[in-house]
């Protein structure tokens, strides 16, 4: 796919949500959420169940109207033309089980503005890309759950969207198909597609996303690059693996504690300690290092730290009717 033209407004940002608010009854489900996604960027959108992810996504896609705030897609409020440049794989997904695959893909493509005569070719290409060609003559109801999910992904990307929204795209897929979808998402990103990727799986975010946005109780509590966030949440502990014993390290300046950790050691620094100082001291002491790194938390640990592990689970679906009472 050719590089996408940038008409996303300033700095090539095709998707920009500013100050989104949404209230259902007495509950503010989304509060002052702002979000930008650049071309060729994959943004992980994470948060606990009921945090407001799906409602935010629906507002960004103009399925729900926000009570406050604005959404601009490709530099303007979303309209029919913009809608055709978006691909959306919702968490609550499905297809017509009684229909065969070609007419479904054709219908979905036409709704995205693909001319009728071009639709079959694009559908075939998407099916081939996801290894579904042999299933083409089948009815959806004849496919396994995983294949149905792949088919829906094919329907989502067949019209070559420039803004792709994936809500829990890998749930229910086997590892082979997860890898296939991840590779496809990566290819789309490389082609310049802006991807918003909502998930509970932090490992997927770490693997796929350039940036992560965390939402809790309707508010964004974390927004930044994956590495940057991990670095920001890095601890004052060092992980060291070497051939020799390290109890002597306790006597080094800036070191508060030394303990075994797996096959190596964990060194805790005091307020005056620094990783660079400890590294230099170890090398000066002739220690042959196999591994030396600052211990950084995983995104999951950061997530749990922020939202509180005791209040939320990482699996399961967002409360389904949380967004159902909206006047779209």
């Amino acid at each position: 796919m050719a590089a996408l033209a940038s008409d996303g407004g300033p700095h090539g940002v095709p998707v920009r949500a500013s100050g989104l608010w949404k209230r259902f009854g007495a509950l503010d489900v989304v509060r002052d959420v702002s979000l930008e996604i650049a071309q060729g960027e994959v943004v992980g959108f994470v948060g606990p169940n009921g945090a407001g992810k799906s409602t935010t996504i629906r507002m960004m896609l103009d399925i729900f109207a926000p009570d406050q705030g604005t959404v601009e897609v490709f530099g303007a409020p979303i309209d029919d033309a913009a809608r055709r440049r978006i691909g959306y794989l919702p968490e609550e997904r499905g297809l017509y089980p009684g229909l065969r695959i070609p007419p479904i893909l054709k219908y979905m493509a036409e709704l995205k503005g693909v001319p009728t005569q071009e639709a079959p070719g694009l559908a075939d290409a998407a099916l081939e890309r996801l290894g579904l060609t042999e299933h083409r003559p089948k009815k959806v109801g004849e496919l396994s759950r995983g294949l149905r999910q792949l088919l829906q992904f094919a329907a989502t990307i067949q019209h070559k969207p420039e803004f792709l929204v994936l809500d829990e795209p890998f749930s229910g897929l086997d590892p082979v198909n997860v890898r296939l979808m991840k590779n496809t998402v990566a290819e789309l990103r490389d082609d310049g597609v802006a991807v918003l990727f909502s998930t509970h799986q932090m490992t997927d975010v770490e693997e796929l996303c350039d940036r992560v946005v965390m939402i809790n109780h309707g508010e964004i509590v974390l927004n930044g690059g994956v590495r940057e966030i991990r670095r920001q949440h890095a601890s004052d502990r060092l992980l060291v693996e070497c051939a020799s014993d390290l109890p002597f390290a306790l006597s080094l300046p800036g070191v508060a504690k030394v303990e075994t950790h797996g096959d190596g050691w964990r060194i805790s620094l005091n307020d005056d300690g620094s990783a660079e100082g400890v590294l230099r001291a170890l090398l000066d002491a002739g220690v042959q290092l196999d591994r030396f790194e600052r211990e950084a938390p995983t995104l999951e640990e950061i997530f749990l730290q922020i939202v509180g592990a005791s209040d939320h689970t990482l699996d399961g679906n967002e409360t389904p009717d949380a967004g159902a009472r909206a006047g779209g």
Partner: protein
Amino acid sequence: MRGREPVGSVRIVTRHEFRTAVTRPSYIILTAAMPVLVALAVAGFTIFTLVTREDGEAETASSAESSAETPRLGYVDLTDGPALFGAYREQPGAVFVPVSDRDAGIAALGDEQIDALFVFPPDYSETGTVVRVRIADDGGGVFGPDGPSYSGTLRGFVLSNLFADEVPAGLAERLRIPYTLVTEEVRPDGAEEESAGFDIGRAAFFAVAGISLLFSVFFSSGYVLNALVEEKENRVMEVLLSSVKPDALLLGKFLGLGAAGLLQMAAWLASVGAGALVVGFIVDIPADILTMPGVGDIAIAAGYFLFGYALFASLMAAVGAVTTSLREANQISAIVIVPAFIPVWLNFILFTEPEGTVARVLTFVPVTAPVTGFIRLATDAMGPLETVAALLVLAASAAGALWLAMRLFRAYLLMYGKRPTLKEMARSVVSG
């Protein structure tokens, strides 16, 4: 994909819904059922008619063969002067055969060459006496010992011949067959001649159209209900809503499924019309009965179908929007469907008193209006003004129902698992 010529979303949804609906096996079976039934009925009728016609022709041939079996009534004219009874021998149902004298007549009677013998004696002109000569032991067959009296036939024979030279030929014919009784009905005011005639063709058109509408509207609106609930159940709805606005989606469904319903109704009406033409050809039904409906009648029927469909489809869409499963939706849809059948249950009242209070009220109640309207139109009980007024009320109701459906649809289209309360629905409708 930029730079593409956008195709109207409504048109795409309409086309998809139409294609999906008309390729469903249930739709195909239902649509084909009427033509098949009509074809079977016409075939059965044709076979029956041909068989009975052959029997009738055989009887006619037999009857022609024995035209002697047409009663041959011998008469002997013994009156003085010129022959009185020569001009009009053929009478309805009998032929009068002159016999030279009484004995020859008796001989002919005995040989069954004639069925009766009448003798006009010489003093007939003075007395008016006519003698019927009967052989005493002939038994008289099924008519008893005296056999048929032939009195009416004899009267016509006598009158027409007596006045043969006295009155013009046309009047003599009237003497032979004095009158043919024709009955005409008029209204109490007696002013309108046209009111005397009942337009069977028009009544049949509205009756068939009414039945077709009843089924077609409910099936079509049922398709809308099913389509909406299925898309909620199988979670396609949210995918669609990322591509098309809710109003456009709902409108596309209305149009596509309405077109499928209209096609179904057209197929049914066409099959019934074709069947009627075939039957008319076979049994030679008078042309005035088989007249095609006028443009006005077709427009009225189309109006009732369109507005009726819009009303019920909107109500069904509203039901589909607030329910969470097909089973629940079908149960709740009874609230919409059942009132529509009130005119069917009250059909006796509507047919006997098509201009009564009940009929007039039901004509303007939206959910009963379509069926009531067709019943009253079939009985020729609705004037133009009342028809237009009823259609306007129905159209306004349909528009209101569509507005309600769109509000509820927008509010609850992504609701899964829980049905809103009436209070919540009212709030959603008011807030938009």
